[in-house]
């Protein structure tokens, strides 16, 4: 049975399991769902967008809770209130677009997103098949499998946060999610192969910038930032004109929570021609609680537009879109929710936040 058939089967199993879950005692369902959420949170629950949405759900304000109850409730509440006063009508008009966007809050289908991403995995598999002596091709496939697995976890968490009824389905979604676990052993074997081939290559040619870069990413993938950073820096020194190793260096800083260094490295990457740096900068700005949500979204849009597909393909390998899709949706949606919440209060933010003027400047220069 192919993966797509199994995904279909998983969806069917999930539906049946959901029916069974509904028949159970409510407290038992809640316990089961809560346990599942706890497990998922240990994987991806520290991400800013998730924490932000979760906090908003806990503040108890009418607007925040309205947001989290879904677009239909928001629309009804806001527009009913908006109709009562001139000021209300103004607020309603200004937030109409935002609320309609919130209407697309990520009621994300883990199955359909996984299907999109799997197309990319297949493409990377074909690429590796063409040259199994290339360590970078092993690395690309391993990274893709990891992204796929994380996206599944994010999708389930997102459902749990944004649609309480999804709690009933979370236990059922375990079936879908478990598909991502199949890739773990393969991922480790791929990384091992990348490591061995890279060690061999570096023993023959210690200054090979591409191999130094692959080594950095292998260490990043196995969660060893110290070695990852050492090799990323060596890769930068080996190819100082290439921005790609700086992207990896930025990823390492960000994985360690060093936002300032991460931004600096991502900016350098962009300056040296690797526009993947803009993708990292866009991620950073979306999660910056010190910047107004509206400014965040505007700057995010400017930065995202500067990303060039050929740079993405050169960095992540030949694959179709789909990786890290859910995380990106979550971050963007959280900013939209914040923007909506902020729109209920007077906001005067007409300039770019000072901290990001340089980032925006780079992006604008690229347009000229």
């Amino acid at each position, binding site marked *: *049975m192919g993966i797509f058939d199994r995904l279909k089967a998983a969806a069917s199993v999930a539906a049946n399991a959901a029916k069974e879950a509904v028949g159970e005692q409510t407290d038992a369902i809640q316990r089961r769902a809560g346990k599942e959420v706890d497990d998922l949170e240990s994987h991806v629950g520290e991400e800013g967008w998730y924490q932000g949405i979760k906090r908003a759900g806990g503040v108890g304000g009418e607007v925040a809770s309205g947001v989290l109850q879904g677009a239909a409730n928001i629309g009804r509440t806001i527009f009913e209130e908006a109709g009562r006063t001139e000021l209300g009508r103004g607020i309603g008009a200004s937030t109409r677009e935002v609320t309609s966007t919130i209407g697309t809050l990520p009621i994300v289908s883990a199955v359909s997103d996984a299907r999109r991403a799997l197309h990319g995995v297949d493409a990377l598999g074909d690429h590796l098949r063409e040259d199994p002596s290339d360590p970078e091709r092993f690395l690309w496939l391993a990274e893709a499998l990891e992204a796929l697995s994380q996206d599944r976890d994010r999708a389930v968490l997102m459902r749990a946060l944004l649609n309480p009824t999804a709690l009933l389905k979370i236990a059922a979604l375990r079936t879908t999610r478990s598909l991502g676990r199949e890739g773990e052993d393969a991922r480790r074997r791929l990384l091992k192969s990348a490591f061995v*081939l890279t060690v061999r290559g570096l023993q023959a040619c210690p200054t090979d910038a591409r191999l130094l870069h692959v080594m950095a990413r292998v260490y990043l993938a196995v969660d060893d930032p110290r070695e990852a950073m050492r090799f990323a820096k*060596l890769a930068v020194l080996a190819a*100082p004109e290439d921005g790609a190793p700086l992207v990896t260096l930025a990823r390492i800083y960000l994985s360690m929570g060093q936002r300032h260094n991460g931004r600096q490295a991502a900016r350098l990457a962009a300056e040296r021609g690797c526009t993947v740096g803009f993708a990292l900068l866009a991620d950073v700005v979306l999660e910056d609680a010190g910047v107004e949500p509206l400014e965040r979204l505007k700057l995010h849009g400017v930065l995202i537009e500067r990303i060039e597909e050929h740079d993405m393909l050169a960095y992540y390998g030949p694959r179709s879109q789909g990786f890290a899709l859910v995380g990106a949706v979550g971050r963007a949606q959280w900013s939209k929710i914040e923007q909506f919440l902020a729109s209920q209060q007077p906001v005067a933010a007409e300039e770019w936040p000072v901290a990001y003027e340089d980032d925006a400047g780079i992006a604008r220069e690229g347009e000229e």
Partner: protein
Amino acid sequence: MIDDLLDLDWLPDLDQLAGVMDNLPPQVDLQPDPDAVPPAMDDLPAALSDALGALPEEDDDFLGMDHAAVGAELLRAAVEGLSVRNPFAPV
């Protein structure tokens, strides 16, 4: 298709690679000639040595360095002097 992909059995060199992997020590020297004396990291400029040897603080001096000025010879010395951790070695 992805089922076959994840088996990885289609990779002819994988068993051989796995054999190599099993014999890799927990630390792997990148020095190509085992009889050669590895260059000392002490020979590297202090700033470079510092940048490569430790996790940075929030402001990493490495980012402000002139990367092109380091040169291939120093880079070769830095890499050949490395003994790297094998992340897949049994604990």
